[in-house]
């Protein structure tokens, strides 16, 4: 058997095995009269390894034998294979986040006062793990509760240059009286991934949101909150 053939067979075996295979195990898969020498097999494996160079896979030796694996460089694409569809955040979490954004710095107790219900530790933990919220200081009252504020990551996620771009309370009041269709527009904004086909409608809607969300005077070029 020539080396090209051996290489072919070795590749097929290693890809089918889905586990590391030792040199001896490889050789044992050949019939007695066709079995290559160890040196031949090793040369074939080396040739295979060289052939993989520049591809997305590589031949490696691990404790239990030879294995073909995906290169680290391919991880960004490959790891998404096992991504789980995200759940949705609870109403309580969104309200908490909104209060922190609008009323920062704000303590957990103050959030609870406004919401009228206690704020679970897991919500605060989730918001901080997501890096949207962080402790910015402590209130000088008994117990010195932590005060929370939003982060730069929060602004980035929502594509805000600064918190100014959030609608003010007055504007929100107008919004709620303006009526259904506007709210529909707002909630229709196609965000991220799945809607490349909506490209045409997106800019317009975005412009609309910015109009409503920006306080007229705060919308200067030198908007102060762009730095952090």
């Amino acid at each position, binding site marked *: 058997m020539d080396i090209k053939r051996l290489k072919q067979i070795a590749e097929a075996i290693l890809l089918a095995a889905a586990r590391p295979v030792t040199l001896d195990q490889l050789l044992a898969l050949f019939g007695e009269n066709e079995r290559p020498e160890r040196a031949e097999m090793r040369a074939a494996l080396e040739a295979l390894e060289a052939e993989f160079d520049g591809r997305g896979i590589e031949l490696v030796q691990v404790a239990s034998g030879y294995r073909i694996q995906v290169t680290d460089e391919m991880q960004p694409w490959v790891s998404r294979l096992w991504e789980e569809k995200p759940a949705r955040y609870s109403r309580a979490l969104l309200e908490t986040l909104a209060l922190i954004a609008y009323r920062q710095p704000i303590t957990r107790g103050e959030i609870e006062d406004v919401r009228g219900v206690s704020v679970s530790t897991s919500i605060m933990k989730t918001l901080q793990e997501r890096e949207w919220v962080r402790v910015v200081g402590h209130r000088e009252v008994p117990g010195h509760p*932590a005060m929370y504020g939003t982060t730069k990551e929060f602004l980035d996620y929502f594509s805000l240059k600064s918190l100014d771009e959030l609608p003010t309370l007055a504007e929100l009041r107008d919004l709620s009286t303006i009526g259904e269709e506007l709210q529909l527009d707002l909630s229709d904004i196609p965000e991220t991934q799945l809607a490349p086909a909506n490209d045409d409608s997106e800019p317009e809607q975005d412009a609309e949101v910015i109009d409503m969300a920006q306080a007229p005077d705060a919308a200067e070029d030198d908007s102060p909150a762009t730095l952090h």
Partner: protein
Amino acid sequence: MSEDQSCAVNPDIPTQESLPLAVVQGQSLDSLPKDLYIPPDALEVFLDAFEGPLDLLLYLIRKENLDILDIPIAEITRQYVDYIELMQNMRLELAAEYLVMAAMLAEIKSRMLLPRPAAVEEDEDDPRAELVRRLQEYERFKQAAEDVDELPRMGRDVFQAEAGAGNRQVVKLPPEVQLPDLIAAFQDVIKRASMYAHHHVQLESLSVRERMSSVLERIRASHFTRFDDLFTLEEGRMGVVVTFLAVLELSKESLLEITQAEAFAPIHVKAADSAQAVPEQATGT
């Protein structure tokens, strides 16, 4: 109909050639049709080899190279019934379907024998039509089963190629939130808290609130920070004003202390002492 071929043909299924006629269970086997002889220990195997009466019939027809469209009913019936009787003699449990088929064959045979007026013959169904239809229908699926068996099969003919992919942990994606959802949540909570009438939030622009957070983060309780350092000139006048308002608001809320050693000396700020209790948290990361 080809009656006289039958004796020449032997069934070529399981091991029919092995034993001599005479020794089977000590019985005389002279009465059995010679072409049907099967050793008794092979009978069960024989029966298993057929998927039912249609399969057995097909075998009898194919064995003699007969056209399925022109079955010699009398001869086939005779052979079929011989098999059935043989199996019954051997006390093999026979599926009821085999007996039903025997009855059907007998009925067709009798109808074939009935004289029919020539004029009607064209129109009237051949008594064998239904049997022929069923045999053909069965045969095509018998063939289809063999074809399916020939298809390349995973793990038998072809194999999934697989390369190691590192740690295959399921990545849980964080949920997506859209800005309108966040705003709606705020509207709800404010409405619920009957705070719509209040001006509290409106009074300070949001940028001041935000700046309060960032100023708080930069100052420490343990040492003073130069007041000037809180300002970033590149932000322009608006930025300076916002920072100044933020410092004033923080001071009003007793969250930071402002000190000046003497007139025109640099102003310093530090976090209120309360923050010292947990300085590492207060200063953030």
